[in-house]
């Protein structure tokens, strides 16, 4: 039967430069493994530096075309990818459902094949249905697929930027070089060894949570999921995590608390009695925030529901990290695009 893995060793010329993992697509964090993640974080360091320049642009992907194929509204993620592609000098095309023939009965496959016929090198796919990037990858002959978030499944670049934000923030605090750079290239020491991360909220429906669990644990972190039973996946067999329903017991043990956005529609599915009850039992209120150790990071993939999963004043207190997540998002996506589509052009050029 078919394999779930999307990582295909490819002899096509669009693999990354020497020394880089020859990934054809980025569909799941599990395609990367710890070494692949560490490598992307190292390349991200370079692009963070590029982003700080007066003209934050390198010619690495000149002549390449990247399409953002967004079937679901997400201006933030789309702009982050498109900015990343432009800073690498790629041509960018935006495909959004509203202005296309998809709404007029054209099949997903027709759309994808039409776009590939335009001569493109990479597609960032965002879709409300889990697994769509896998299907798209199966229909394309040449272009690389980057999963920009699929249904309740995965959002690998979000997880990479979360890893980047955590590792670099922790190591900057420790006054050391970024841990990714210090990491033992043989893989014995991992960037998040000994770091304890709590992910709080609607794990069941969260693609961010699924990718974060894979990425954080690959880098050695201990992960604890904190949620009411209705907002956990029906089965956690094979997930290397702990589970708690007691946020107050967990908070003092954490280095990082990662809050997920709670969607209003969960109330209609009998998953929760009310937002108010959720906030009362699982929200990061001001009082609960005091249970965190002083240097614990508060993170959120955005957009934040102030007063629901996080109290407004706690969100303000955490805003520096949340803003850094957004900034790092561009650099991480530059690294991903470069590794998938680049041909080894000197980044210093």
């Amino acid at each position, binding site marked *: *039967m*078919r394999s779930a893995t999307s990582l295909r060793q490819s002899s096509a010329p669009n693999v990354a430069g020497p020394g880089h993992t020859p990934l054809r697509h980025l569909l799941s964090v599990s395609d990367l493994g710890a070494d692949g993640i560490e490598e992307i974080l190292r390349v991200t360091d370079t692009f963070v530096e590029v982003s700080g320049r007066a003209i934050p642009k390198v010619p690495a992907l000149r002549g390449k075309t990247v399409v953002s194929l967004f079937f679901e509204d997400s201006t933030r993620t789309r702009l982050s990818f498109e900015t990343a592609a432009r800073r690498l000098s790629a041509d960018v095309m935006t495909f959004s459902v509203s202005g296309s023939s998809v709404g007029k009965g054209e099949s997903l496959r027709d759309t994808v094949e039409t776009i590939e016929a335009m001569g493109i090198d990479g597609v960032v796919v965002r879709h409300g*249905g*889990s*697994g769509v990037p*896998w*299907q798209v990858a199966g229909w394309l002959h040449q272009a690389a697929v980057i999963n920009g978030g*699929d249904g309740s499944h995965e959002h690998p670049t979000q997880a990479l930027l979360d890893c980047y934000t955590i590792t670099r923030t922790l190591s900057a605090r420790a006054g050391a070089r970024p841990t990714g750079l210090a990491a033992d290239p043989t893989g014995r020491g991992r960037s998040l060894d000994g770091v304890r991360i709590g992910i709080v909220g609607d794990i069941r429906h969260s693609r961010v949570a699924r990718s974060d669990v894979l990425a954080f644990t690959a880098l050695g972190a201990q992960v604890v999921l904190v949620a009411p039973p209705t907002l956990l996946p029906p*089965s956690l067999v094979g997930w290397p995590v702990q589970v708690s329903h007691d946020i107050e017991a967990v908070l003092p043990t954490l280095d990082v608390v990662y809050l997920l956005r709670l969607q209003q529609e969960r109330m209609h599915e009998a998953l929760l009695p009310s937002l108010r009850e959720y906030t009362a039992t699982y929200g990061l209120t001001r009082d609960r925030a005091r249970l965190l150790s002083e240097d614990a990071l508060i993170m959120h993939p955005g957009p934040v529901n102030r007063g629901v999963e996080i109290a407004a004043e706690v969100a303000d207190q955490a805003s520096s990290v949340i803003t850094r997540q957004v900034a790092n998002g561009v650099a991480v996506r530059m690294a991903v695009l470069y590794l998938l589509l680049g041909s080894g052009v000197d980044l210093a050029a």
Partner: protein
Amino acid sequence: MVSAGNRVESTPAGTVVLDAGGCLVAPGLVDLHTHLREPGREETETVETGSRSAALGGYTAVVAMPNTDPAIDSAATVRQVLDLGRDALCDVAVAGAITIGRAGTRLAPLAEMAALGVKLFTDDGSGVQDARLMRRALEYASSLGVTLAQHCEDSSLAAGGHMHEGEWSSRLGIPGQPAEAEELMVMRDLALCRLTGTPVHFLHLSTAGSIAMLRGAKASGLPVTAEATPHHLSLTDECVAGYDTVYKVNPPLRTEADVAAVRAGLADGTIDAIATDHAPHSQESKEAPFDQAPPGMIGLETALAVALTELDLPVERVVALLSWQPAAIAGLSEHGLSITAGAPANLCIIDPEIEWTVDPSRMASRSRNSPFAGRTLRGRVRHTVLAGEPVVVNGQAQR
């Protein structure tokens, strides 16, 4: 059938002689669960293409499911499908809907359809959700000598689920439907069967819990029968891991333990029949996101081979599950008979050892959604004889 035996003394001139060397001559197979899609969805299958597909699979009779458009819920539609089946490559029996439009609210004219020979009624595609209505349907049917068949799925518990709920659905981020969505309705209908005494046939059972309940019900003497599909006896929910929509089916592919229970149920007689649930869908409709693709797989041309390859049962037992046991449930008196002079010559000649690779592009079905594409299977139909006419010879449909 003129005569039966290993030696035929003389044949009249012009007699077609079929080579059955190394083969098993068996009664033609009978499928209790075929979606022929006509009327309404002719781009995916017709009575003609579906019956050709069936003949190639060794079937001499199929029961056409009523979830067509319009649904087979009246004498007129029953007649229409029976007429379409008149010249088909296998006999086409019709299952009628239990409720008007399969909407689950008002009883369909069961007696009117029974008068045309309909023996099986079902709202397949969904289960009858309303327990009171199902009770009334069973009571009403008890005087008609027919069987009601249920697609067991509690729609409130299954709602929004696109695969089996469990380890794989959790990992893949696809909303699932729990085994209990099927089991709740099995449990309810066993109770209603006890209450009314009317026979109930359980369609495509897929969970260990359902099969355990059926085993108990049979032991207590309830008039129940059950079927399982080739895919539920061979494939698990892990198949969905690559998001290939060919593996989307309802009831969904379940766990290893459920597959083992289906096999055990077939081995010990808890499950009476292997039925295909042949459900053709166009390529375009299957090329949709997993949560939007229609559920269903084709199966007529692979069912026998999957059963022979996957089941650790003697070939006669496999044929029993595919031929005379389903013929008895469907009330098809001309099929699944022992091969003796005087009986209608509805036969299939099986080469039980031949290995072949499934290639949907070479199937007679109008659709290609086979989950067994590319798999090597053992055992294949060489010839099919329908009422004395060789409709399939050496694996080729004759018309």
